């Protein structure tokens, strides 16, 4: 009895340490980013760093505004493309398709998540970019291309989480609605979706997180011009691409400025997550 309890405690302690090493990794990363990127932001002034329009690291001009706008534009674009598609797929799979079809389709969709992002980027470069260039104009490498690729990349996240939350809505809700004479679509629109709202919001938040953090595929299709695009057919640079693109050769203050880019990204993700969480919990309470 006491032996068992002892081994239990030992295992508990072991697991605790492992759990904490994961959490402290987060701490270490946060500390490291702020320690590396913080000083330079204050040296050149927070305002010029965030709202500066020009990014010329070799001339010690560090303005991240085009990248901040770029990140937000591309993420918004990905949501505009990915969310309706994903939500429609989830509604179809949960409410309209046969159980057998759903059982085949869902794993296939989840397979999308397993494709490496460099493959998405490569496909974009091979097919999407020439298509946009020849049919819509511009260089092809653009906000639109990045949004479409990211929109597809967030599909598995959006679909599987909203599918689960739609399925979690108790069947008695649907039965009640249909008993009142509502059609199936009316039931989905007016009963099921509102009931699953917080789960769907969670799906969108996680999709957004994936979109804003994605790097490789975006570098390949976005064109990476450090300027605020004048249209969705113009190239754009996101915060993550800015870091990955220039990290290779950056030294000294340039390198620090890239860490500062990481700080800004960190803060933006925090703010977006908090806003989303707040609205989600408020929605959930209603």
């Amino acid at each position: 009895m006491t032996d068992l309890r002892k081994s239990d405690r030992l295992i508990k302690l072991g697991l605790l340490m492992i759990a904490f090493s994961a959490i402290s990794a987060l701490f270490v990363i946060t500390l490291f980013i702020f320690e590396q990127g913080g000083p330079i932001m204050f040296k050149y002034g927070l305002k010029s760093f965030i709202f500066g329009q020009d990014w010329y690291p070799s001339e010690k001009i560090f303005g991240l505004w085009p990248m901040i706008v770029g990140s937000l534009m591309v993420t918004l674009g990905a949501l505009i493309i990915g969310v309706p598609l994903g939500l429609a797929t989830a509604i179809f799979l949960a409410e309209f398709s046969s159980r057998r079809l759903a059982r085949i389709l869902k794993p296939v969709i989840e397979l999308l998540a397993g494709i490496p992002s460099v493959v998405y980027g490569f496909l974009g470069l091979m097919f999407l970019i020439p298509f946009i260039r020849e049919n819509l104009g511009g260089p092809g490498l653009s906000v639109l291309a990045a949004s479409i690729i990211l929109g597809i990349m967030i599909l598995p996240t959006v679909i599987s989480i909203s599918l689960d939350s739609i399925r979690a809505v108790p069947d008695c809700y649907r039965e009640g609605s249909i008993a009142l004479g509502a059609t199936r679509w009316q039931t989905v629109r007016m009963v099921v979706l509102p009931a699953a709202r917080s789960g769907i919001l969670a799906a969108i938040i996680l999709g957004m997180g994936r979109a804003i953090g994605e790097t490789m595929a975006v570098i390949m299709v976005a064109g990476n011009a450090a300027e605020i695009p004048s249209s969705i057919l113009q190239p754009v640079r996101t915060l993550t691409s800015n870091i990955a693109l220039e990290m290779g050769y950056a030294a000294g203050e340039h390198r620090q400025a890239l860490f500062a880019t990481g700080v800004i990204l960190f803060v933006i993700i925090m703010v977006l997550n908090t806003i989303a969480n707040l609205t989600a919990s408020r929605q959930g309470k209603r």
Partner: protein
Amino acid sequence: MVSDGRAVLKKSHSGCRYFKSREFPLASRSSVLTKSCPSRNKLLSLLLFFILLSLGLGSFSSCRSKSNGTEIIVAGSTSIQPFADRWAELFMEKRPGLVINVQGGGSSAGIQSVKMGAAQIGMSSRELKEEEKDLNEIEIAKDGLAIIVHPTNFISNLTIEQVKSIFAGEITNWKTLNGKDKEITVVVREEGSGTRGAFQEMVMGKTRITKRAIVEDSNGTVREIVSRDPESIGFISLGLVNEKVKAVALNGVNPTEETILKKEYRLVRPFLFLTKQAPTGLAKEFIDFVLSDEIQSKLSEEGLIPVRKASGGAKIP
């Protein structure tokens, strides 16, 4: 103690669940942090982790050993680094027991580290400035910079001024150069890259490269994009030009090994090895090895221009 552990277990369970339903990653994460911090036990393990971490980091940094006659450090330009890596490998194969440690850092860092004595040989892919001339420089190769366009582009010759205006964003349409009425897509390398640095120095001077330019992070991707977009223009290392792109002539001079050696083609940068004094010992052996026929004759295959013709009766030291 026991209840404590259970609480943690419960929490990790709920942390898992958000993938399936309505909890959010951040909310659950922060709750774990705030609720568990006060416990002594956990603080202790956190402390332990940091101690282990710092021990690990410490042993990493102490790994670097000092040079002692059988090892030299070669540091500097990242453009030369991949080539130097290969040369060092070949050298070490022939002379087991000797170590050539090749590091990057960029041309300026290379110059600096030779001056400070941190490296025995510095690598620079740009000419030395006046105040750096006190170093002993040995040219080991030349690298040409090619301005490339799509093979179907009507342009086959540009003046340096035209190239400058295109990359500065002053000429934005091929029409200005008597071509089709199409916008020019300018493709450049990222800030900090040696190729961009060389281009900036040799073509642009003080003028900035246009912000609207597409930025890619390797010679390969620049070539890839130019080979696919009929309206684009970019610059890459001459050795990497292939049949999928067209290298334009500058001021009427085609970029070839011959015109570069005759100093007619202007976009050339030297690959320099730098030493503090005249090289001695292992450093001298390595430099001689790089200048030997064995290496020099292979340079053109790798896309570089040799400083001496191997067969041309050059003096062999």
